[in-house]
């Protein structure tokens, strides 16, 4: 259970890191090290054997939470626990704040980063799901440029994303909803801190009459990627949300998802749990939105 040998690099600027990562022409396997909460176990088990490890923990450009009014930008290297405790996150990104306590444990969140989780793109992971539900903008740098891409479309398959070799995710820009909004996040996991078997997040906005003007809903652990439930959203927008309407809107959920069986939960279990969790998240989001 010891990692194979590697050469260690510790850039202090983004430019330097992009250069180190892009520097190919040999058969070196270059890999970024963020919080290490997934990569280091993989290296210990020799499932990952980078020859060049580029530690991005000392790059200040990747750190921090910035309130831009209509959006909040989180540096990819910001620790999950720092984001969880931050007053800006709690006030402006309540869905993210609700999801973060489910990500591992205090100890893993003290090291694990927001960007590292999104880059892994695990279908059961909470942060990618929230990024998808809110359709966050992902800002990516590489040696020869910078681009922005939306979370919708970023998660391509099981642990596969649109990130290319040489790319560094630098910032995640989460849109902030104004007006009367509510949000909630629920999951079932074998034990506290484990990856979710099934998770669901919902955010709704209401107008002055209590009509739903916006809804964003997604589930984790139900498909090869985190999944947004557009059909459920469409059934809610423009309506006054009652318990009966919500029950009706979630009815198609088992057909919208494509879960697999694992040792911890069968596909049939996930099909039953998903609508329940979506309903719970919606009801809680609604009661938070209503004064």
């Amino acid at each position: 259970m010891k990692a194979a040998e590697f050469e260690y690099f510790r850039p202090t600027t983004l430019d330097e890191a992009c250069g180190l990562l892009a520097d190919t022409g040999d058969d070196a396997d270059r890999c970024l090290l963020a919080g290490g909460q997934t990569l280091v176990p993989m290296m210990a088990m020799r499932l990952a054997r980078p020859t060049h490890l580029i530690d991005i923990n000392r790059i200040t450009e990747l750190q921090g939470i910035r309130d831009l009014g209509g959006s909040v930008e989180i540096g990819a290297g910001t620790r999950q626990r720092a984001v969880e405790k931050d007053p800006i996150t709690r006030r402006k990104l309540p869905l993210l704040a609700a999801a973060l306590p489910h990500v591992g444990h205090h100890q893993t969140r003290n090291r694990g980063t927001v960007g590292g989780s999104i880059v892994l793109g695990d279908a059961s992971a909470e942060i990618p799901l929230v990024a998808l539900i809110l359709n966050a903008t992902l800002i990516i740098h590489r040696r020869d440029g910078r681009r922005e891409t939306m979370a919708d479309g970023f998660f391509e398959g099981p642990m596969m994303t649109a990130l290319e070799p040489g790319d560094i995710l630098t910032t995640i820009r989460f849109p902030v909803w104004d007006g009367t909004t509510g949000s909630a996040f629920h999951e079932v996991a074998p034990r506290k801190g484990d990856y979710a078997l099934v998770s669901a997040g919902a955010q709704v906005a209401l107008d002055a009459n209590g009509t739903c003007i916006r809804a964003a809903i997604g589930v984790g652990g139900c498909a090869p990627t985190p999944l947004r439930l557009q059909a459920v959203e469409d059934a809610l927008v423009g309506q006054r949300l009652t318990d009966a309407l919500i029950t009706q809107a979630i009815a198609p959920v088992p057909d919208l998802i494509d879960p697999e069986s694992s040792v911890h939960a069968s596909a049939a279990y996930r099909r039953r749990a998903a609508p329940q969790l979506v309903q719970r998240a919606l009801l809680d989001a609604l009661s938070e939105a209503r004064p």
Partner: protein
Amino acid sequence: MIATIDIEFTVNGKPVRISVPPRMTLVDCLRDMLGLTGSHIGCEHGVCGACSVMLDRVPIRSCLMFAVQADGAAVTTVEGLEGPDGKLSPLQEAFWDCHAMQCGYCTPGMLVAAQGLLDENPTPTSAEIREAISSNLCRCTGYQQIVEAIQLAAQRMNEGVDHA
């Protein structure tokens, strides 16, 4: 062979200068190079919590960090929790009083996790205690006495009573 890297950090308040191979984990460095065998190795891949130490005052898993990454940091191990006079800390004392250990393998990690909680939240509820130690596995105790010990430590620390 890949060259070793010189690092400087503090361990339990004492400055350390050492040269480590990049692939050496922090827990191996603490145990094998510095002789601090209080931090235990259970799983070596982040699931058991036996290797918990404080890094810049917050608990982390020292098997999930390479020692080179601790360059410039302040590390506190279970050995550093005791008072300067060598007396057990209120938390350690409470573990003793509540019989919060059997084989003791998980105990250093539990103490570090619990100290991290009490530093941040001096009056934790039982649910908050369970949450904070959810990262640490114990095969022996069934956790109940550990929760009670942390509660007792919090109570004593808040009363400011010295029970040594």
